[in-house]
């Protein structure tokens, strides 16, 4: 599978302070797990929390909502950020850290005449997945399906059990079967919101192509700055991952940028 991935911090923020976290793990020859978590910038230790989530989720947790919820509870217990200052300790005790999550399991179902991809998805929050069919049309998106969905405050996974009980999250599950030739995009909230806007303007796939054409994070940062300034995209950390077995079906040229955090 060819994988393109790009990430950049919000404008005015150093790249090391990008609070998105993204991991891909090859479970076996047929199975790939994609995890994207977006640490909330108003919280404390947001980057550490989103990294803790993506580094430690086990693919066996993606069997059911209950399994994932149980697993996330263990992550809450094992999260021990390095706290060296009283202000940080007080904020952590009062508010904790919070982040969203999109977990995607891609299983290749190889048949005699054609192969399929079985997608298993779980969402807490507003990181989105888009699936395009061979003809370039959008055949599936999750958990949101339209631009207006971003008006809602996203659910968040919190490190504070007390606050989580006060504002519980809902794990949204989904599954989708698609052609092995499909194009899959996983994108954090601000760029997802932008992509839904592009969809309404008939520019969705060309926007994905523009992203893939960036080839590196430096160019991607420039493109995101243009989107922010000219297209009204929200100033937020941005992460995008594009996966396909057939890049030439969708793009002028295909470049494999490797597996971040693999």
């Amino acid at each position, binding site marked *: 599978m060819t994988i393109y991935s790009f990430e950049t911090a919000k404008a005015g923020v150093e790249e090391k302070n990008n609070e*998105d976290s993204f991991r891909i793990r090859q479970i076996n020859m047929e199975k790939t797990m994609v995890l994207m978590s977006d640490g909330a*910038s*108003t919280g404390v*230790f947001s980057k550490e929390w989103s990294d803790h989530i993506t580094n430690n989720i086990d693919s066996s947790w993606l069997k059911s909502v209950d399994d994932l919820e149980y697993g996330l509870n263990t992550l809450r217990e094992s999260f021990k950020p390095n706290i060296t200052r009283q202000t940080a300790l*007080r*904020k952590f*005790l009062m508010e904790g850290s919070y982040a969203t999550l999109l977990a995607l399991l891609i299983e290749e179902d190889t048949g005699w005449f054609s192969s399929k991809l079985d997608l298993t998805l779980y969402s807490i*929050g507003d990181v989105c997945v888009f699936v395009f069919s061979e003809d370039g049309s959008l055949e599936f998106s999750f958990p949101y399906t339209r631009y207006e969905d971003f008006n809602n405050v996203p659910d968040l996974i919190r490190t504070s059990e007390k606050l989580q009980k006060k504002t519980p999250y809902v794990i949204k599950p989904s599954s989708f079967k698609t052609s092995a030739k499909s194009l899959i995009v996983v994108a954090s*909230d601000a760029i997802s919101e932008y992509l839904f806007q592009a969809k309404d303007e008939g520019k969705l796939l060309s926007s994905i192509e523009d992203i893939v054409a960036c080839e590196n994070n430096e160019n991607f940062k420039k493109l995101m700055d243009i989107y922010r300034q000219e297209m009204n995209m*929200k100033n937020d950390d941005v992460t995008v991952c594009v996966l396909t077995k057939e890049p030439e079906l969708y793009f002028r040229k295909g470049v494999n940028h490797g597996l971040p955090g693999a």
Partner: protein
Amino acid sequence: MYTAEISRTNPALILFLFDCSYSMSEQYGTAKMSKGQYLANICNESIDQIILSCEKGDEIRAYFEIGILGYGEGSDILLPIQSVIDLANNPSRMVSETLDGVTVEKPEWISDPTKRVNTDMIAGFRKAKSVLADWASTHPDSFPPVLIHVSDGEWTSDNPVQTALDIQSSVTTADGNCLILNIHISSEGGDVLTYPAETPTGSEHQGALFGMSSELPESFYQRALEMYPATQVGARGYMYNAQPEDLTKFFDIGTRLRG
């Protein structure tokens, strides 16, 4: 207007202006403390909340600058304008509190500033005008400075309302005019008011402090509505005998509760 993102490049200023006059030493309502002590508590709590909003775990980010002026017989600088990082590193004292069973140290910056003097409120606003104008001239692209005035409203000098209105009209950044919020703490009783849209019918002092309070810009109005659902269009930054909610909720520090 009033949409500039607060960042390390373009920090925001919150300037407190405190009434340190004799009348502030009186008991505050049924609270077991003086109005001056109550004022100090509001201030320490607000500064603490602002610093916590800038705390990211590995560091405190310099999104805000804070200063405190006082007036009584003339005006004084109680705390020079400084970044939240310097404030966090230099409290005047620490008090212990327990959070989730853990004992932690909570900082404080001022104690009851009350002096047994007159209430030269206009001198306070004149000093504030000069300090705010200096700051705005060096931060032309920042969110407009916010002046938070805490008083029982009973001045003994000339009427300060026009001076306060002058601050609103003359101190500006590219993002708008200076905002003035008044926290009116009184022993006179009467209904608690939070961000009213119409002139209060109580004392002359209520009317004056309301009159010098800025109309909440849209972003502040929306936050006020979240905190106090009865807030009406045209609401002003005036509170009467109300415990101010987290003042940091008014400010767009990066993105709010987004991932």
